[in-house]
């Protein structure tokens, strides 16, 4: 077992983990952040996307020991008193159906907009290429991200 110290959604956690423990399993099983989910085993689907030190990462493809000393933001820590504009836009534009890809999709969109606050449709699509959705055909996800970009420019 290896000792790790990881800040998750603003709270410092010191834990013992097996070196083989995936960050996503650490989050789900040791920290109780079950909002972040696992969808595949080839780093393809992005359902497990979180922000690791502020940048999107697939938490199924990071070992918990690699994240030692880092700060993780999950879908559960995204909202403050109000929802993040990306969350609000996904609801407004019906950018989700079953919701399984949604935590990862939202976190990728948050990262995308932090890097490119004014993306074109093509840039939104490319920026989300690491996240698979089986329900929406992406149409409303793209609309959601575009709306979030507008909101964030306007208000915050």
């Amino acid at each position, binding site marked *: 077992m290896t000792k790790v110290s990881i800040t998750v959604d603003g709270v410092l956690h010191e834990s013992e983990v097996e070196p083989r423990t995936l960050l996503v399993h650490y989050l*789900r099983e040791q920290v109780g952040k079950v909002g972040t989910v696992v969808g595949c*085993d080839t780093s393809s689907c992005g359902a497990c996307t979180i922000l690791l030190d502020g940048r999107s990462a697939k938490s199924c493809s990071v070992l918990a020991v690699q994240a030692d000393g880092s700060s993780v933001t999950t*879908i559960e820590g995204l909202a403050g008193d109000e929802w993040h504009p990306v969350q609000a836009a996904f*609801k407004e534009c*019906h950018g989700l159906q079953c919701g399984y890809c949604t935590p990862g999709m939202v976190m990728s969109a948050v990262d995308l907009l932090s890097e490119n606050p004014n993306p074109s449709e093509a840039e939104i699509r490319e920026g989300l290429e690491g996240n698979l959705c089986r329900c929406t055909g*992406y149409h*409303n996800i793209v609309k959601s991200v575009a709306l979030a970009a507008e909101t964030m420019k306007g208000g915050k």
Partner: protein
Amino acid sequence: MTELAEHVAAVGRPLKRKEDARLLTGKTQWTDNIQLAGALHMAILRSPMGHAKITKLDVSGALKYPGVEAAYGADELGDLNGSVPCVWPVTDDMVAPDFPALAKGEVRHMGDCVALVLAGTAAQAADALEGIVVEYSALPAVIDMEEAIKDGSPLVHSDKGTNKCYTYKLQPQGDGAYEAAKAKADVVVKRRFVNQRLIPAFMEPRAVVASPMGTSGELTIWSATQVPHVLRVLLALVTGVSENKLRVVAPDVGGGFGGKLQCYREEILCVALANKLGRPIKWNETRSEDMMATHHGRDQLQDIEIAATKDGKLLGLKVDLIANMGAYLQIITPGIPLLGMFMYPAIYKMDAYDFSCIGVFTNTTPTDAYRGAGRPEATYAIERIMDELAHELGMEPMELRKKNWIKHEEFPYTTAAGLTYDSGNYEAATDKAMALFKYDELRAEQVKRRASGDKVQLGIGISTFTEMCGLAPSRTLGALKYVAGGWEHCTIRVLPTGKVELVTGTSPHGQGHETAWSQIASDTLGIPVDDIEVIHGDTRTSPYGMDTYGSRSLAVGGQAILRAGEKVVEKARLIAAHQLECSANDLEFDNGVFRVKGDPSKEKAIQAVAFEAFSAHDLPDGLEPTLQAESTVDPQDFSYPHGTHLCAMEVDTETGKSTIRSYVCVDDIGIQINPLIVEGQVHGGLAQGIAQALYEGAVYDSDGQLLTASFADYLVPSAPDLPSFVTDHTITPSTTNPLGTKGVGEAGAIASTPAVINAIVDALRPYGVNDVPMPALPMTVWRTLNAARQGGK
């Protein structure tokens, strides 16, 4: 009493979904989130072989691994090794092999379950699989369906003596009718289409937790399933656990598309072992397991022949299918081609129809329902061959369709397949779609690009589809030998505080029933949407239901909601009349308020009536307390959504890469409850249908190795692979249900595949191309183009 919000008409409004609050904040309840004290994690050793004898299996080594409590092969499991049920024996003489949860001495597809381990953690269980000793002796595998039905082919089930599961025929006009129609034809076009195998690839992998609960001997099963009610019946039958001791819960379920319409091996194993050991058993699959052990879809060889006069009047249609069952039969495996059987004549009038299907076993993962289930296959074949016939006749493909489709004034219309379509307006949907698409402008551009020899050619693809939803009147299902019925249930309770519990037997897994069902009940009861709570997916709290698949939930379940709501209002009216001292007939009911006709000052809100029904101090004589009602509705008939889909495709003739330039569809799904949800359903369906056309296909090698066993190889499209869609609608209400709804879950997936392939073929028609296999990946298109160019020389 709490203050009551006023009701505003809800049906038809694009309300934001109630479900989203939990889904967008990670407060969801997926099966994999459930962690119970003392749970044992199950890991399964699966066959790496397509077909083999198990010559040695020793699970004892696994027991030496840390944390391992038990390990089982079929021998150790004994009577607990239940068999996966099939509930649709399509013919009396159908060959139905045993499908044990753990293979007994022989594995028949890659992914077949061989042994299992139970350990304290998932990691320990996975580690211990390495301690199991298993030896295989390879048997010849049969993958190709046509090879499988030849004499002397290796047999998937040697004890059955054949790989043929069944032969099914439908000749509504009688034997010889098609041949007679064909004899009058000027043009006959025949094609072989390969409707390739697909993998559902819902985003949430399957997961099961089975646990003894409480002191009553009850066993609770949480499963990522579309069909908790059906599953409970089947698990009771298979495991022998008394049905009234089984509680099946479908918590938040992350997509299904038919793939979670099943009673899976792993569900049977978890229940049997939890029951035996008295411990919670948890299993969640890896994506790699999912790709080979979740049932697959499609996989049919379609020989289709169409006969017409030289001016384009259709005379007859003949369809001969070979359908891949895979290695075993699952819940409705054999019935899938039959769901397509009725749809080949589609929207067209013709004199004769002749259908046959041979179901075939191969050493592949079993097939079963996948979004559309039989209807996409049928729609693909008919819409493809309509384009080929148009080409043979030298007609514009849309003109050929117009010439033959059922005109809107001809409904109700009984098709050559024997279905009676209640309503439709193909003209209106088509006119709207062609205008949105700018059909004529695109045709003009196509002419220019052809003339200039542009390396990137433009093609236009059409699909004027229909489908049947709302499976189905129970009697019809019985006549087709399907074991269960087609009804749906709803209970509505108006609670003393005026809040409503709506209990439905449908089981959403992404569709937004909590929102849409609230809208229906809101208008019926005159109670605001936000005051209605939809209860679903738990056989203890919603005991009756037939669940969610086949675009049935609204078409059938919606009727039960409406009827239950009406019954509640009828009862409330009696109470209100009693208290307002008038006759029930003297009351108007509007927006949740009963008013005495001619004396509107005398009124009573339905919520107030609910409290009276609860206190029961002053009810009419003989009327039972509480304000609730239930309804179980058996549908009168199928419903028939339709639409016109148009695809403009750019094909790079150098690389073979096809890129969708625009996609327009106008769907007619009747009355829409929530247009926002409707549009989302269409988008998702389009993506899956386009994915079949352009990207996805499960591929086996000749030994039965699944080569597309991960998301790295099975190409589920991501956002850059798809365009934005232009969607619109016409509304022709269904006349066979009181809501006028039809169903939308599968429309996009059914309609889009032929539109896309027709577009590619259209782009390449000048080079002599008259078909492109699916998925039309660049290499496939390039090869097809090369072959056509060489053939033309």
